[in-house]
């Protein structure tokens, strides 16, 4: 259906707007809880973009792991590490100016490079959404070793986190 031809840009810009708005919010806000909440917006927007990019599984994983797990962890960390409810440390003006300049230059350079290339040459765009089965097969066949390494890493992280966070006796 060609409904998508006019719907897709709208949805894209909607999600992109959410992502950028939240990301800018993260940068600007001084309140770390709000920053975490803005991060939820960014993560949700990126998940929406994944849906748009036909990566349904990845979107769901993004929501469940990032938004449901990591973000809760971060908020939890914020609560545990602040005595007063408002955690505000302002950077100095010179730092802010330098960082903004660098950020802008970086973005300009990246944008120049990205827009300077015709990406449609010899592209093989995907026409089907990636199914869970495909991803699973690839994960357990071609990417078995990274998969196993990742599982070991998770184990190490689990032990490490438990060790680091243990009560001091």
């Amino acid at each position, binding site marked *: 259906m060609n409904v998508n031809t006019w719907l897709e840009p709208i949805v894209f810009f909607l999600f992109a707007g959410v992502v950028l708005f939240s990301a800018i919010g993260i940068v600007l806000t001084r309140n770390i809880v709000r*920053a975490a909440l803005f991060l939820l917006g960014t993560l949700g927007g990126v998940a929406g973009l994944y849906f748009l*990019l036909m990566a349904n599984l990845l979107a769901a994983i993004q929501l469940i792991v990032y938004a449901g797990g990591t973000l809760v962890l971060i908020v939890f960390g914020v609560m545990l590490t602040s005595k007063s409810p408002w955690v505000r440390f302002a950077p100095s003006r010179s730092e802010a100016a330098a960082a903004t300049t660098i950020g802008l230059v*970086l973005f300009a350079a990246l944008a120049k490079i990205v827009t300077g290339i015709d990406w449609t040459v010899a592209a093989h765009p995907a026409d089907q959404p990636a199914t869970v089965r495909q991803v699973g097969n690839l994960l357990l066949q071609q990417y078995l070793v990274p998969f196993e390494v990742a599982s070991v890493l998770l184990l190490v992280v689990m032990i490490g986190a438990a060790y680091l966070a243990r009560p001091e006796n």
Partner: protein
Amino acid sequence: MTSIGLQHYLLLAAALFCLGILTMTLKRNAIGILIGVELILNAANLNLVAFTRYRTGAIDGQIVAVFIILLAAAEAAIAIAIFMNFYNSLATIDVDRADQLQG
């Protein structure tokens, strides 16, 4: 309306990346830096998935993105644990105070 292509996603990811860098440099709260890292990782993921969708057609990029999400979760867990210790010893979470080799 122009049709959406790889460029749009790359630009968005670039912006997200730069904002992540800004977050990392401008937040003095350690958790703020962690949030900046998450932004950067998301930018990278977005690139991967966009390339998968618009250029290669294979789903390898998504697999790598899955691994990145996993690593991000692991990293957050460890980072929070470290911040906890940091907070316990210095009673603050300002990273600018973390400039000693001991403590």
